């Protein structure tokens, strides 16, 4: 049950913990996602260097291109917190600008991934080529799917803001989307290090 607090802005839920159940749920979900991506990363590491045929990470991964896409995703996280900050201050117009910038940067990241996947396919690496291809496409493909869901979520928030559904009091809805988006960002931080930097260097 939610009610407007005496101080005026953020609605506080009456729960046994004093914490929002929706926020608890998203954190529990993100914890389960840690285990999901952890399993995929472990599988990639276990099969590292065990492909019987090429191409492998050293021949095919392009660090400069992936570095740029990493910067794009990091920048999108900044845009996301600016959007959250704007909505908690009741600045809906600023929120719309920041959330749209976040969605555009997310879509740009997906564009980089589509470019990379197409390039790899042309070079002869598909999920069926070897163990590296199978584990690489499964891991990065699932991450890309998460980014796609995030972009759709952000665009839906952008749309809701025009219906008047998003106000200073409903900052929690933006907070939940922001938590998901930042999680997608930190998963990529790990993937960039483990798959790209360490995978190519070692």
């Amino acid at each position, binding site marked *: 049950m939610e009610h407007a607090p005496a101080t005026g*802005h*953020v609605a*506080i839920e*009456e729960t046994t*913990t*004093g*914490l929002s159940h929706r*926020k*608890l749920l998203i*954190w*529990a979900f*993100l*914890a*389960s*996602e*840690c*285990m999901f*991506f*952890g*399993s995929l*990363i*472990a*599988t990639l*590491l*276990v099969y*590292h260097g065990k492909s019987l045929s090429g191409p492998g990470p050293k021949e095919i991964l392009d*660090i400069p291109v992936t*570095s740029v896409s*990493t*910067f794009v995703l*990091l*920048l999108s*996280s*900044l845009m*996301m*917190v*600016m959007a959250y*900050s704007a909505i*908690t201050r009741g600045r809906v117009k600023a929120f719309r600008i920041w959330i749209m910038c976040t969605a555009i940067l997310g879509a740009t990241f997906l564009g980089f991934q589509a470019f990379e996947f197409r390039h790899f396919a042309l070079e002869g690496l598909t999920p069926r080529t070897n163990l590296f291809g199978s584990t690489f496409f499964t891991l990065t493909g699932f991450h890309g799917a998460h980014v796609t869901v995030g972009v759709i979520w952000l665009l839906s928030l952008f749309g809701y803001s025009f219906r008047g559904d998003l106000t200073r009091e409903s*900052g929690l809805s933006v907070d939940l989307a*922001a*938590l998901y988006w*930042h*999680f997608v*960002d*930190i998963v990529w*931080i*790990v993937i*960039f*290090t*483990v798959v790209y*930097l*360490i995978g*190519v*260097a*070692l």
Partner: protein
Amino acid sequence: MSLHSQPPEHAHPTPLTYAKVAIVLALVTAVEVAIFYMESLRPIFLPAFIVLSAVKFTLVAMFYMHLRFDSRLFSGLFVGGLLLAASVIIALLALFQIIV
């Protein structure tokens, strides 16, 4: 935990703090890429990449995901998931004799 243990909204960082964190994140990523191209640093590649990646991960979780400012229950849930994920990775690597 009482109703009032929830930190107030204004406890979250300001846009300026968010921008500072973003600059640090960009710099750390740039350092990572620079190290990658420095052959002389090859012996420390693995620990350097792991530490720098952990720094970025922590900064995003603490400041952008507000774990530093929100309830410790959220931190406990997330860190619990992270520990389980790390256990899965270590167990699989040990099972396939990549480590140990």
